[in-house]
């Protein structure tokens, strides 16, 4: 196998890793602050792809700006959906046992899955790379689609932004306080329920954003919702909860392992991801960058 092909594939893995990071960071936030095991995260990711498909091909007709507009509006729809489910449904379950929250999230996965089937049918949808990024670029002697580099760039930008938000802003402080001790934080005058909703909205936005960004590189098909959710969970487990850096590194790791796996052992690629997870939790039970917050 030529080196150039390998480099291309690895960069494909890195860009996929970038997408995975975006997806998983949303999940990590929601789990960290709201303490909800959000099974429907992957469903939102998938839903975003379908929504952006409709936005780009029907609402915004031409693909010129269509894709970029759907990159903005698609995730916003998803964020709104996330916010609504939080306010109407999840909010009432925070005080109850975890089983109820998980079951609720699972219920929404079923429902969203059927909504997708009902609205868009069972055929997979694809979208072409947006104009301006359809070309290729030479990196270290290999040919790499320009879009990959865009995705990687966006991923890094978001990672830095998220880190700044979580660690350096007031909202980030409120998030961390609500995550550590909600009742005390509330007692200090913070509107904790609002913070929870905001985090859920942000997390859902990230999931939607990841979905739309990933769409040109892949396809939207029924069944990839739970697939995405599980990969996101695995990344959060590998990287450790509560760490933007951890999620980023883990995302890249999984993306690259997946890419290499597809190249050499296409049928059993998925097993490698599981082996990676198992290996990491044996060595570092709380993830690479995780701390024991139990």
């Amino acid at each position, binding site marked *: 196998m030529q080196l150039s092909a390998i480099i291309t594939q690895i960069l494909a893995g890195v860009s996929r890793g970038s997408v995975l990071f975006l997806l998983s960071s949303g999940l990590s936030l929601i789990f960290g602050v709201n303490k909800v095991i959000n099974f429907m995260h992957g469903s939102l990711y998938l839903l975003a792809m379908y929504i952006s498909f409709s936005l780009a091909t029907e609402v915004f007709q031409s693909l010129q700006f269509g894709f970029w507009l759907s990159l903005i509006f698609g995730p916003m729809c998803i964020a709104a959906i996330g916010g609504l489910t939080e306010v109407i449904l999840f909010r009432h379950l925070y005080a109850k046992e975890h089983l109820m929250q998980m*079951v609720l999230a699972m*219920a929404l*996965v079923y*429902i969203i899955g*059927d909504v997708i089937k009902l609205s868009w049918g069972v055929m997979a949808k694809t979208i072409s790379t947006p104009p301006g990024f359809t070309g290729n670029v030479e990196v270290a002697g290999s040919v790499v689609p320009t879009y990959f580099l865009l995705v990687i760039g966006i991923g890094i930008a978001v990672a830095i932004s998220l880190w700044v938000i979580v660690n350096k802003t007031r909202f980030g402080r409120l998030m961390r306080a609500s995550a550590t001790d909600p009742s005390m934080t509330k007692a200090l005058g913070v509107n904790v329920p609002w913070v929870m909703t905001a985090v859920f909205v942000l997390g859902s936005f990230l999931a939607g954003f990841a979905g739309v960004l990933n769409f040109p590189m892949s396809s939207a098909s029924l069944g990839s919702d*739970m*697939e995405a959710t599980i990969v996101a*969970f695995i990344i959060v487990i590998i990287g450790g909860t509560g760490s933007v850096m951890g999620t980023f590194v883990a995302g890249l790791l999984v993306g690259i392992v997946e890419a290499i796996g597809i190249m050499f052992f296409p*049928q059993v690629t998925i097993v490698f991801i599981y082996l990676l997870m198992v290996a990491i939790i044996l060595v570092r039970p709380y993830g690479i960058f995780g701390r024991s917050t139990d």
Partner: protein
Amino acid sequence: MASVSKMIKVEKWGLSAVIVVLLVTLPFILPEYWVYTSTDIMAYCIFALGLNIVLGYGGMIAFGHAGFYGAGAYVLALLLKKTNVPFWAALLLAPLLPTLFGVIIGFFSIRRRAFYFAVITLAFSELIWAIIIKWYTMTGGENGITGISIPSIISTTNSLYLFTLAVTSVCVFTIYRIIDSPFGRTLRAMRENAQRMEFTGVNLDKQRLIAFTISAFFASIGGTMHAIVTRCAFPDLADWPKSGEVVITCMLGGIHTFFGPVVGVALLFFMNSIVGRFTQYWPSVLGLLFILIVFFLPNGVVGYIQESKLAGWIKRIGRLG
């Protein structure tokens, strides 16, 4: 105290005997379709009761039990179709591999709290599903395995029903004894206050792993029986919607009751047959059901009945929560 417990025991056995007699005579009363459905219900009951060992009694949220159910079905199907293992041997051997999976999966997931446990069990069950669906040469992938042949003694609808009834009864009885044993009591105590149990010297991880393995064992028996009843095995038996379905089944009936899951299974099959006639969107109905239960019936149907004023004596017999 002794006379009261003796009274309850007699009542318990009396009721059980009545139920068994009723069940045995069912195939001669009901139309064939219902007998067949009841047989499938019984197989699913083993699955649900198995799950409830960890879900209700262990307090462990396991979203990956369909992996064992599906594996149980597939191992039986593969043994019967690809090897010359005789039926009765296959029946005994089939649940062993999924139970082994249970030990391995349990080993990695038990240590952690609810989040990791639920996610890792789900993830591993998806791995099992992925293997089933990708290994085309072995499992036929999406097409599944059909046309499993079973011995003629049990191949008529009625005889299959009675055979399944026998197997189910043994399983129910065994699970009951396990829950009612010191082990079962320890498990329930761990659910209530793990830290205190740890202070009394209980090895939490070991006990939970044992419970999880037993639970996986029964789940796989359920799958094996299902394959026998339906004569086939399909990948969706191991997929996550099935895992969610069995959880909702237990919750529908009541996870903190012994027969709750059984009631849940019956209701589930009933609803499925009705809904199936009108729409193909059974998942949405299931989802809505989940939501209704979470908000209005968190203790399930049987749990609700128990807490209400009626059926005081059913309470005493059925309650083992």
